[in-house]
């Protein structure tokens, strides 16, 4: 630590050059912060082990094609199925088309299928007892400042009421929280009663969008899925049943590509950064040759000169990198706010910080290695004579 002023002085010997280099480091880590946050957010949506005991049964051909409500009772009889619920896509808009609210019309037992959802017993009771009631995730409540007791008008993108109006009004009866490892977006859902939806909807005809089948044992997944699909084989509503995990896996494949894209971009950015910073460091050390020789003359060991130069380049990366990541942490929510929630960049998480700092140190070492090695090998007599 007593050498810090030395390192600091060396770093800002050429202010303009150092500042310019810092700017590019800041830019690189700002980008890294944002992209890595996006990547981790996507990843976390597909990694949880929650939901291994759930299957999703939908139309074999298209999620838009409805299934008969009567199918539920038949699925329930299959051995290995603990409970069956169902949901329909509602698709609500709140006041302005850009305020899209993910909303499902769900069966009475739907919430029981998701133990990762936590709703107080009274709110649950109130929801169950109110035909036009709704429960919402806490993130959604936060987003619009909705509270229990509020009457919320939602415009359905698809379904008009029997009187022709597309504006449905719901009473918020409960706000639930979800476990940390719950699937992404679960805390932003708006759930209404399927029964009300089906009865009040001009197109209501007793059909459901998809079934959620909770298993007695996750290991039975494949067998049960086959059995469920067999129920509707050769009918006009053939089904496809997948585990939530399989569903996630196919999803994750696309996300793997996001990881790859993010990785490639960052690879290119960091490669450029390394070239640039390495050049700065090489120049900085070259023009300080005689100063380094003096340090050695005074009695600094070759190894401490090596350490000084390495520390200098790591410090350079850390200063720029921390500012860059810090900016990303500040800017991400600001962009979300500024865009009215249209672009929702996730916050920079601890994982991104850890990886970022690791990268800063690593790049610092890589970039400082050659100049540090040169400084270590520097011949005092030659350097002092300007040879």
């Amino acid at each position, binding site marked *: 630590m007593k050498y810090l002023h030395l390192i600091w002085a060396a770093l800002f010997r050429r202010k303009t050059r150092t500042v310019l280099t810092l700017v590019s480091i800041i830019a690189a880590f700002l980008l890294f912060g944002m992209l890595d946050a996006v990547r981790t957010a996507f990843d976390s949506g597909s990694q949880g082990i929650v939901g291994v005991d759930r299957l999703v049964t939908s139309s074999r051909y298209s999620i838009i094609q409805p299934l008969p409500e009567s199918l539920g009772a038949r699925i329930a009889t299959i051995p290995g199925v603990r409970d069956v619920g169902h949901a329909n896509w509602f698709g609500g808009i709140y006041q302005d088309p850009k305020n899209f609210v993910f909303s499902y019309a769900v069966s009475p037992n739907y919430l029981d299928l998701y133990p990762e959802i936590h709703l107080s017993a009274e709110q649950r009771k109130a929801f169950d007892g109110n035909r036009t009631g709704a429960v919402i995730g806490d993130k959604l409540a936060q987003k619009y400042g909705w509270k229990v007791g509020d009457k919320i008008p939602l415009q359905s993108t698809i379904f008009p009421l029997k009187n022709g109006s597309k504006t449905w009004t719901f009473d918020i009866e409960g706000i639930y929280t979800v476990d940390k490892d719950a699937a992404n977006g679960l805390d932003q859902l708006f759930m209404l009663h399927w029964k009300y939806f089906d009865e009040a909807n001009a197109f209501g005809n007793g059909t459901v969008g998809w079934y959620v089948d909770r298993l007695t044992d996750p290991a039975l997944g494949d067998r049960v899925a086959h059995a469920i699909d067999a129920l509707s084989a050769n009918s006009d509503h053939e089904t496809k049943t997948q585990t939530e995990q399989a569903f996630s896996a196919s999803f994750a494949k696309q996300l793997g590509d996001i990881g790859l894209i993010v990785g490639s971009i960052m690879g290119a950015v960091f490669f450029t950064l390394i070239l640039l910073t390495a050049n700065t460091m090489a120049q900085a050390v070259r023009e300080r040759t005689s100063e380094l020789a003096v340090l050695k003359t005074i009695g600094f060991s070759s190894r401490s000169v090596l350490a000084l130069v390495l520390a200098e380049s790591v410090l350079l990366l850390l200063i720029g990198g921390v500012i860059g990541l810090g900016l990303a942490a500040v800017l991400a929510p600001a962009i979300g706010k500024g865009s009215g929630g249209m672009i929702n960049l996730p916050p920079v998480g601890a994982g991104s910080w850890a990886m970022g700092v690791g990268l800063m140190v690593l790049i610092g070492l890589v970039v400082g290695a050659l100049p540090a090695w040169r400084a270590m090998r520097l011949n*005092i*007599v030659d350097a*002092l004579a300007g040879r």
Partner: protein
Amino acid sequence: MATLIDIQNLAKSYTRGKQKVEVLHHVDLTIAEGDFLALMGPSGSGKTTLLNLIGGLDAPSAGSISVGGQRIDQLGGGALAKWRASNVGFIFQFYNLMPMLSAQRNVELPLLLTKLSAAQRKKNASIALQLVGLADRASHKPSELSGGQQQRVAIARAIVSDPALLVCDEPTGDLDRQSAEDVLGLLQQLNRDHGKTIVMVTHDPKAAEYASHTLHLDKGALVEQGAFA
């Protein structure tokens, strides 16, 4: 007086490509503790080379150098650096201060290698600056000081860890008459009052007068003073 430096049959050669240049040959020299020796000689005669060997900056090709009973020609790089830190102070023609550091911080530099506390380092550096008459310039950067002042800061840096030996390579080579006299007076004072042994390379006979005696080097060998008379 006791011998501080004992040099025997010293030789130094450099290989440049295929060519081998013998810069010093058969140098025998003893320097007593408390001596102030001026080294003179034409350009290229090997003065700097000899000084660097005495200060432990370079290793001889043959022969032995002992300083204070320590065979420094037998020390490895790391041990030699340690030895320099506590036994030699260096003063160069172009001062070689750290341009980004204040005079105070420059003088403190050698003390970073000691176990002294920050407060102790500060105090010792202040004392050294006081000794060279620059206590009021402690916070100035080298660029804010005159050449003579810079050289005095360099002298403060050389003495701050209290080495027995000071080696100076043309310390006044870049200074005007007045500044040169200040610096030489200071060196003389350090020699006389603080018992520092000084070896100083100079081209200037006037500077050599400040030393207690003068040796001449020519073509890599010490010559009798009479040869020049």
